[in-house]
């Protein structure tokens, strides 16, 4: 007999998918004991009923957690819970039972204090952290529901002004933000996260010219910013709005940092970047280009000359593989290659075989850039699986679509050079996916296979970046594992008047993290200078709809059809149509109005 799903099984299958989406959109901060209890109940319902520990034990375990939550027991119950869970883990016949018990044990260890709080005081030490999830998850806390509502109303300039209250790079972020906001989007509980980044791009692409915002009266204070990337420019922008004079010192001959020298044009066209930078400069931010702090001017000079200094240098140095032959000719780092592109030093890859090593977004950028430079073939070599790559899934997919090969589970072991010292091949050791590490990510180990030879004429290494901290370390700035040591306020302890943030402090991260760091620094530098300026915007946000739109698919950005990729550095992704933007905006659940967002946390009108 053919087996078919009956109606109830079909509905259950859908409910499983619903619950998966719901769990993935869970905000943080819920009572962990309560959540554990309910996970346990789900697990118990999954028991087939055959074996004692699972059929009875999980229920008893749930009862004990219930007693903890009701505060109707003593601390001794924790030992009972542990013993019971351990017995279930030891004796349950299948994973349904023993994995459930393992989860209970992990929770007992991981938040034992919370268990104790319930038992001793009858309450929980938790508190909801996400009021408006997208806004709270966004490092810069941009008012997402606000600008989506404005975009829906066709008020694009207002949408952009609202974004600029927290982030002076609306255009850049509309194109290349990693959009952490979408990860906890409540719409995921209905169908799928709203395409927030795409809506932002629609707003910035349709907003007309905007005059620079007015600055507060001049304070006479002066701040130097070291590094004209997104973080430095954010700090400079907000400090200028607050009435302080800011001077940005930039080593290159153009502003933008990694946005210009690390992100290829087909993802972020220069004119889009220039649009944001021009708006920032229009407020009165001053700039000294081609000026390297350390050679052209010294940190000491800046500390003397300015009331405060903000160090926001990017992660422009590359990490080395540490394998034989790496020093050979035609072996370059991805940062070097991408920087060269922006500076006009375009390598000739015409007809060449290129290997790229790495699995992050930069590796994808190097791969896709190589294709555009006319390489005959591009192989991206990565030691784990595609699922384990840190690059955004759409980047990986695009790299594959554009014709590159992704060779997974191969760890580079040696670079073979020819007689002239040029790269001839990459040797890689095949790997096998292995046990989960502490972080829950699977590790790899060498497979029982011989190393393979991958012939290539050009090798790009994209296995991570570092910052050039040495000069600062030599000049009295504390460092920690290759980054500058700063407090959470961005202040550099013991420095007198130096602040630092962004990649310089966190190590290589994202543009929105740099913006967030710049915002925090501006606020604290303002405080340090003896002021309490506030940044605000006068935008009236449209009322929300009364009923949210019915379940509906998410609009993804489409991609431009490319005939011959070689030489085509044009933008790949295409913005939404008006129809798409309207539909997508309509999917926003307006968590600023519905749910906890209209009570606790919620919208901030100023900071």
């Amino acid at each position, binding site marked *: 007999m053919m087996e078919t799903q009956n109606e109830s099984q079909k509905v259950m299958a859908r409910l499983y998918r619903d619950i998966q989406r719901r769990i993935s959109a869970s905000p943080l*901060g*819920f*009572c962990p004991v*309560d*959540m554990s209890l309910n996970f346990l109940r789900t697990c118990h319902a999954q028991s087939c009923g055959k074996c004692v520990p699972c059929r009875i034990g999980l229920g008893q375990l749930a009862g004990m957690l219930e007693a903890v*939550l*009701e*505060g*109707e027991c003593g601390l001794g119950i924790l030992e009972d819970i542990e013993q019971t869970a351990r017995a279930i883990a030891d004796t349950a016949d299948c994973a349904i039972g023993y994995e459930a018990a393992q989860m209970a044990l992990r929770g007992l260890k991981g938040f034992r204090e919370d268990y104790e*709080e319930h038992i001793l*005081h*009858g*309450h*929980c*030490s*938790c*508190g*909801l952290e996400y009021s408006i999830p997208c806004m709270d998850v966004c490092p810069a806390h941009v008012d997402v529901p606000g600008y989506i509502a404005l975009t829906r109303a066709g008020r694009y300039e207002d949408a952009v002004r609202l974004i600029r209250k927290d982030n002076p790079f609306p255009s850049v972020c509309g194109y290349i933000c990693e959009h952490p906001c979408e990860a906890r989007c409540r719409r995921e509980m209905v169908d799928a996260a709203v395409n927030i980044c795409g809506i932002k791009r629609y707003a910035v692409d349709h907003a007309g010219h905007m005059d620079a915002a007015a600055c507060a009266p001049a304070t006479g204070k002066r701040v130097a910013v070291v590094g004209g990337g997104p973080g430095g420019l954010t700090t400079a922008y907000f400090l200028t709005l607050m009435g302080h004079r800011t001077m940005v010192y930039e080593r290159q001959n153009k502003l933008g940092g990694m946005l210009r020298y690390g992100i290829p044009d087909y993802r972020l066209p220069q004119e889009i970047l220039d649009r944001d930078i021009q708006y920032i400069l229009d407020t009165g931010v001053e700039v000294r280009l081609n000026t390297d702090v350390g050679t052209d001017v010294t940190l000491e000079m800046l500390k003397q000359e300015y009331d405060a200094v903000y160090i926001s240098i990017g992660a422009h140095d590359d990490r080395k593989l540490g394998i034989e032959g790496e020093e050979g000719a035609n072996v370059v780092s991805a940062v070097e290659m991408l920087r060269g592109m922006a500076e006009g030093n375009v390598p000739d890859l015409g007809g060449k075989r290129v290997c790229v090593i790495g699995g992050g977004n930069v590796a994808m950028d190097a791969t896709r850039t190589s294709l555009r430079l006319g390489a005959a073939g591009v192989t991206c070599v990565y030691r784990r699986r595609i699922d384990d790559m840190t690059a955004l899934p759409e980047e990986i997919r695009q790299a594959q679509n554009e014709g590159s090969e992704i060779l997974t589970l191969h760890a580079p072991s040696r670079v073979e050079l020819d007689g002239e010292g040029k790269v001839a091949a990459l040797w890689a050791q095949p790997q096998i996916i292995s046990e989960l590490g502490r972080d829950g990510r699977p590790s790899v180990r060498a497979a029982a296979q011989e190393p393979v030879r991958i012939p290539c004429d050009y090798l790009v290494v994209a296995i991570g970046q570092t910052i050039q901290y040495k000069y600062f370390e030599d000049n009295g700035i504390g460092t920690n594992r290759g980054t500058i040591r700063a407090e959470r306020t961005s202040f550099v302890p013991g420095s007198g008047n130096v602040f630092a943030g962004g990649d310089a402090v966190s190590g290589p991260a994202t543009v929105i993290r740099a913006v967030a760091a710049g915002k925090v620094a501006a606020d604290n530098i303002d405080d340090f200078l003896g002021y*309490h300026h506030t940044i605000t915007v006068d935008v009236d946000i449209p*009322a929300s709809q*009364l*009923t949210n739109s*019915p379940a509906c698919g998410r609009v993804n950005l489409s991609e431009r059809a490319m005939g011959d990729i070689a030489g085509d550095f044009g933008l790949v992704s295409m913005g939404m149509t008006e129809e798409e933007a309207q539909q997508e905006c309509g999917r926003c659940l307006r968590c600023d*109005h519905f749910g906890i967002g*209209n*009570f*606790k946390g919620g919208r901030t009108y100023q900071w």
Partner: protein
Amino acid sequence: MVNLIIDGQAVSVPEKTTILDAALAAGIDIPHLCYLKEINEIGACRLCCVQVEGEEKLTPACNNVVAEGMVIHTDNARVRAARITNLQLLLSQHDCRCALCVRSGSCQLQKLANDLGVLENRFPEDLPTQKQLRWDQDFPLIRDNAKCIKCMRCVQVCDKVQSLHIWDMTATGGRTQVNVANNREIGDTACSLCGQCITHCPVGALRERDDVQAVLRAIEDPEITTVVQIAPAVRTAWGEAFGLTPEQATVNRIAEALRKVGFDYVFDTCFSADLTIMEEGSEFLERLRKGDLERYPMFTSCCPGWRRFIKSQYPELVGQLSTAKSPQQMFGAVVKSYFAMKHDIAPEKICCVSIMPCTAKKAERAMPSMKNRAGLPDVDYALTTRELVRMLRAKRIRVEDLAESPFDRLLGDYTGAGVIFGMTGGVMDAALRSACYLATGKNPDPDAFREIRKGAEGAGAYPWCEKELDLAGTKLRVAAVSGLGNARRLCEELRRGKVHYDFVEVMACPGGCAGGGGQPVHCDDRERARERGQVLDRLDSALPIRFSHENAEVAELYRSYLGSPLSEKAEELLHTEHEVDRQ
């Protein structure tokens, strides 16, 4: 204007009007519970949900605005079924033993359940555990978790109006409770005891500690002489509970009622308000002369909620408080000294009771510094207006049938200046009337400073009221502020040097004591501070004497006992060191 149809009626209202207000304009009162205009518009109780044609779900009326062409049904079968379900859900987590509740009769949940004909509950009772019910029953403010319906009003009033953030949601999910924020005990917080959470609670989850029985025991003790004082603002509100008009609900009717209850002596706190003016006014002129007020003003000290607030929030400004005790405490101090002496009663045989519009007074009277040299407290019990009402009811006194009776003599005189202590700006107004006299030897027009009481009408340029005046050649800037959120704004501006004043009156409750946390609570959520304040205004205008320095019995008290304001005796009895009473 936006045109829509509500329950078949065409309605036209301004843009951005909520559905709730639009319905009200059409005479339709949509049931609601958590909603508190401009303070709590979070749509939590879902009782105000209505059907808007074309919308899939029901829509809460309290926080959604009207749109052109809307067709709304506020009470069809679907709406009613949902409303009753939600009401029953609320009732399942509410201790419904209404007979044991102070808010029986003024409880919005009880009223709604009755109004909507909910006579049974299909959901089983689901009340908090014993551990979740724990509360310090000696604290002046009592919270009953089993009655809380999590409407969040207390959280919002404390956050938005009083800026103290005492309450918060605790735990998450189905176990969410409202309780003291950050899992603290109430006694460990900066609670000002203003009582605004009590007066904005729709049910009986919050109340004052009830001291009525202890007072009745003192009255019944033949050894004890009971002396009661009635604060100015009490007369503006007590009659509300008995359905009396302001004209009927006079303070002399309270006096008669309290005699019926059995008090031996009945006085008006307005007497010691006048006394406060003599001391505080003299202190102000003294500190002004000494240059004490160049950076920061002198603050009034009569409001205990404000004093608790400044001690926890701005300890560095505590030195700016007037050292004068509050009228309640001055009264008690005088009763247990001068009055006792004159009547030849041993002070320890006197029980001094006060009737106050205030919950913080219960804590004030218990402060260690509010005792005399013999260790006797100035005041033995402080009852709120609500407790007064309950006491009169308990004694089965038919207030509407009572004759009015005068106050006892010796401490019985009072002036219009003392009466207006019960409203925002009143203390400042009274102080300026006498300060002018003290500085110039001439009485000013008693209505010359009315402006400083305009805070009762609503905000101007600042969230407080200010006035500049010339005091015998000295330019003075004074301000009056009510509500602790506003007081915080004022303190911040003072600290940043954005404003400068010489003398500032602060009252913790919006509108002053008339809107006090000890005043009667009603089902309608109408803020009554303003109309109650107007009662005081009318009383002041009608009184023959409107200057504290013209209070004959106060003058006699100085002549025969205290000497002069700020004398050694006056300092001992009528002043206090604020630094001593750290919370």
